């Protein structure tokens, strides 16, 4: 199939509003996490405190960012309880 087949399916189905809303919310949370990491590496509780994003959501989004190569893990903190994470561009 050549050309833009996306136009074919756009005529058949519509994107639900709830899906668009979830996508926007995810992007907003990811932006806040990126901003929390803008000054350098941080642990997950530090990112949660800086960004105001709940820690469990930070884990999910940060680990997804790590999976897609946006974030890298660093050393453990002094208490050996948490890892530091930083944006890939900071390397």
């Amino acid at each position, binding site marked *: 199939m050549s050309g*833009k087949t996306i136009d074919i399916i756009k005529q058949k189905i519509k994107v639900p509003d709830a899906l668009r809303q979830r996508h926007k919310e995810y992007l907003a949370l990811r932006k806040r996490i990126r901003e929390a990491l803008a000054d350098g590496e941080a642990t997950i509780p530090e990112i949660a405190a800086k960004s105001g994003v709940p820690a469990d959501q930070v*884990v999910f989004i940060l680990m997804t960012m790590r999976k897609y190569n946006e974030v890298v893990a660093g050393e*453990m903190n002094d208490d050996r309880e948490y890892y530091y994470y930083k944006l890939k561009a900071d390397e």
Partner: protein
Amino acid sequence: MEDILQDSSVKVADSLVVGGGIAGLEAALNLANTGQQVVVVEKDLSVGGRMIHLSKVFPTLDCSACITTPKVSEAARHPHINIITNCELKQISSDENSYWHVRLQINPRYVNESLCTGCQDCEEACPVVVRDEYQYNLVGRKAAFIPFSIASPRVAAIDIDNCILCGACEKACGPGAIDFSQEPVQTEWVVKSIIIATGFKLFDSDKIIRYGSGKFKNVLTAMQMERQLVPTRPFNTVLRPGDGKIPEKIAYVLCTGSRDESVGNPICSQICCMYSIKQAQLLLGALPMVDVTVYYLHIRAFGKGFDEFYQQAKMMDVNFIKGKVGRIRELENGDLVVRYEDIASGQVMEATYDLVVLSVGILPNMDVEKIAGLETLELDPFKFLNQRHEMTNPFKTNLPGIFMAGTASGPMDIPDSILSAGAVSALVNKYNKQLLETTVNSLEITSWND
């Protein structure tokens, strides 16, 4: 039958295997190696079943994927095996010659399999993130995605239910494999026999509200812990999903959703004790400072090398407490308090952990019941396939020409699943040859009822 064979829209094989897990693939390979033509249908985007997602197997601690992937690869390349993924059975019926007519529906993956190179450029371009079911929801995946790194076929798919139709994947795909014009395709097959190898479902631990599963972020299921222990693990180490803390104290709660009349599953799942002991040993390797405690009713270490494996875990300082866990509550810092009845002292006690793993039991795959046209397929009281001749021929269903392999007939471990697949393939091979040689009536009398 002659008419069917001359109808080019109908495809013919000797056997159809329903389910591309380890039992289904083992049965298919055995049959194909004797010259039988086999079609394997799998509802998921990849074959490999549950086993391909495990870290190691008990009690040998061999790499699970290292056992599964050669079989997957061999089946995918076998000239006598046709694997169809993303496929549903729509209807099954038999004709007057005891042949089975099977109508399949191949659902669109919106990616042309023959053009996709598995490069993941579409995945990189896709902006949508949803929970990754192949990582048991611990991380996200894109709406355009390769299911997992060792998926077979290693071909992308579009999760159309979560796609925002931005077209980024189509723009990014160099070979032009993305194809949103795809529609479901129905095909009809005629086969002599069918092997049902549909595996099992895991108990939904959210149903036991007092354990806090689905509510407390640091209560995991054993499959979520299993994913944290594989090389392609979601966090690249073992962490608490609630706050990313490296856990120092972990508890296992055995018999979650098995041997429990109150949740409708009174039988033992046969694998939970051993996979929990395996995970405890692997955790001690991954996190040398961790303390692991296993709460159990009875340790059922019945297989070859199982008790030695259990004793080995004790020697590694895994703590085993015979006691029933009544309730789990969450502290403000995410730690979890396990309240349990200690059988040794007769006291109700409490202990605090960083992480609790629920060793969930296995349930029948009720999708078997949904196979169209097979309402007469008998199930046992626990909703697994009924073994009419459990002692003499445990692989036959009540319907002539339909057999079962693996956990479709009840809980069993991986070696027993593979063993059952070997046995059933020998039976099916004989059955297929007899069907060619005998009449319907004599076949039913001499073969099926013995």
